[in-house]
C-alpha cells in the first residue's frame, strides 16, 4: 500500500495544502490573499483569521485534486517553525486535530529545510552532498546537506534578507512595496554596470544587505540634489545596477562555499529564486565552475505545502514523527 501524506503550510502570508503519494506530489493548493487587493490594500492580509477561513477549503481542494480520501492518508504534516506564531498555530492545531481524529502519525516540518528539499520534487534531483542558497523575503541562507534530513546552515544574513534588499531598494526608488519583482522587470532594460554599489566585506559565508540599502539611499540623495528627476530618468540602469550587486553578493558567497566544501551540486530555493538575474547568474557561474545546478519549479519556490510534503516523506521513511505536544515556534534555528 502506498504512503499518502497531507501537508499543511501556514507560516506567513499563504495557506497551502498538498497531497503526496510515495514521494510524488499529487496536488499543491495555495490560497494567497490576493483577493484582498481588490479592496485597495497592497499590504497582504496576514491575520491568522484568514488562515482559519482558508484552511478547510484548501485542504479539501488538495485532497479532491489528488483523488485521495481522508481515510486513505498515512500521515499529516505541518510547518512547525519558523514563522508568525498566530499563523503557525492555525496549521498546527488543524494538523493535530486531523491526525488525532484519523489516528495516524503527525510530522512536524522545519520551513527552511522544506525550502531546500523543494529541489527534490520531480526527477532532476541533486545528489549529496549538496549546497543550497535559500533566498526569500525573510531569509537568506547557504545550507550544506549531507542527506535529506542532515542539514547545516553554513552562512546566513546578519540583517536584511535578499528579498527584503530588493523590496526596500524598490521602496527607495519610489516603487510600490513589495517591489522586488519590479526591479527585475526594469533591470531587463538597463545597464548593470552603469552605477557601482559597494560589496560588503563580511567574513566567512554570512551576508549583509543593510549597508547596500544605506548606500543606495545616500547615492539617490546626492544624485537628486543635482537632478530632481534622476530616479525617474535612470530607473532601468539603477534597477539593473542594484540587481547586479545583490546577485553578485549572493553568488560570490556561493562560489566561496563551493570552494571551501568542494561541493559542486548547487541549488537555489525560496521566492527570490524567481528573479531572472539570479537564475541567469546561477547558470553562468555553474558553467564557469563546473557545477550541476538546480532550481525548483516556480510554484515550489514561494511558500507552498508541496515542499512540506516532500520533507515529510523523508521524515516518514526515517520514522521521525511528532507528538501532539509539538509546539510551533518563531525562532529560526534548525
Amino acid at each position, binding site marked *: 500500500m502506498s504512503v499518502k501524506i497531507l501537508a499543511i503550510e501556514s507560516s506567513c502570508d499563504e495557506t497551502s495544502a498538498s497531497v503526496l503519494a510515495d514521494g510524488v506530489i499529487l496536488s499543491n493548493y495555495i490560497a494567497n490573499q490576493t483577493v484582498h487587493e481588490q479592496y485597495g490594500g497592497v499590504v497582504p492580509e*496576514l*491575520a491568522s483569521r484568514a488562515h482559519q477561513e482558508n484552511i478547510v477549503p484548501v485542504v479539501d481542494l488538495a485532497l479532491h485534486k489528488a483523488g485521495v480520501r481522508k481515510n486513505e492518508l498515512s500521515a499529516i504534516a505541518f510547518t512547525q517553525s519558523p514563522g508568525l506564531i498566530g499563523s503557525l498555530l492555525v496549521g498546527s492545531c488543524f494538523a493535530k486535530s486531523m491526525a488525532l481524529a484519523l489516528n495516524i502519525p503527525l510530522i512536524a516540518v522545519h520551513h527552511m529545510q522544506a525550502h531546500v528539499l523543494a529541489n527534490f520534487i520531480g526527477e532532476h534531483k541533486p545528489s549529496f552532498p549538496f549546497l543550497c542558497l535559500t533566498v526569500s523575503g525573510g531569509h537568506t541562507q547557504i545550507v550544506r546537506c549531507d542527506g535529506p534530513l542532515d542539514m547545516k546552515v553554513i552562512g*546566513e*544574513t*546578519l540583517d*536584511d534578507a535578499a528579498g527584503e534588499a530588493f523590496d526596500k531598494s524598490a521602496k527607495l526608488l519610489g516603487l510600490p512595496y513589495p517591489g522586488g519583482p519590479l526591479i527585475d522587470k526594469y533591470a531587463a532594460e538597463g545597464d548593470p554596470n552603469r552605477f557601482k554599489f559597494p560589496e560588503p566585506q563580511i567574513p566567512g559565508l554570512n551576508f549583509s544587505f543593510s549597508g547596500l*540599502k544605506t548606500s543606495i*539611499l545616500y547615492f539617490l540623495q546626492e544624485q537628486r540634489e543635482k537632478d530632481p528627476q534622476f530616479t525617474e530618468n535612470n530607473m532601468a540602469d539603477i534597477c539593473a545596477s542594484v540587481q547586479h550587486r545583490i546577485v553578485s553578493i549572493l553568488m560570490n558567497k556561493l562560489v566561496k562555499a563551493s570552494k571551501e566544501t568542494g561541493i559542486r551540486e548547487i541549488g537555489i530555493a525560496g521566492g527570490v529564486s524567481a528573479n531572472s538575474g539570479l537564475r541567469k547568474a546561477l547558470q553562468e557561474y555553474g558553467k564557469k565552475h563546473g557545477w550541476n545546478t538546480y532550481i525548483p519549479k516556480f510554484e515550489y519556490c514561494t511558500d507552498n505545502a508541496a515542499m512540506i510534503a516532500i520533507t515529510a516523506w523523508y521524515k516518514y521513511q526515517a520514522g521521525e514523527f511528532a507528538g501532539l505536544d509539538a509546539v510551533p515556534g*518563531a525562532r*529560526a534555528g534548525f
Partner: protein
Amino acid sequence: MEWTFSENELEVTAKSFWQHYNAQHIFTLEGPMGAGKTTFVKALCAAKGVEDATASPTFSIINEYAYRQNGALHSIYHLDLYRLRDEDEAIAAGVEDTIYKENAICFVEWPDIVAHLLPPDTVRLQLSVLPDKKRLLRAG
C-alpha cells in the same frame, strides 16, 4: 536621554543603553529606512548576550531571540508592524502575547496600529541620520 554614535561606537552605545534602561521592557523604535534600526536592535541583542542569528523582522513581523540572565532564559522580541493593517491583525499575529509576556523585552517598529495596546511605561525611541552620517538616538 539621547546618544550620538558612529557605527564603531554601536557596542559601547548598546551597553550604555542597557545601563540606563535596566528596568524597562517595551520600546517603540521609529526612524527612516536606512537609519539603522535593525542594526541597532542587533547591537542591543548582542549586548544582552543573545547568540541566535538576529535579522530584520520586516517580512517575518515578529522575530524572537533568547538570552540568559541569572541562569534563566528570557526572550527579546523584535516586531515590525509595517505589513499589518490594524489592531485586530496585530492581535491575531500574536503582538499582545509578546508585549505582555513576563520579563520579555520588546522592540516595536511601526507601532502606531498598536498604540492602545502599549503599556504606559513604553519608551519611545527615535533614530535619525545626522549630516555627518552619525546616528542620533532620542528617547522621549
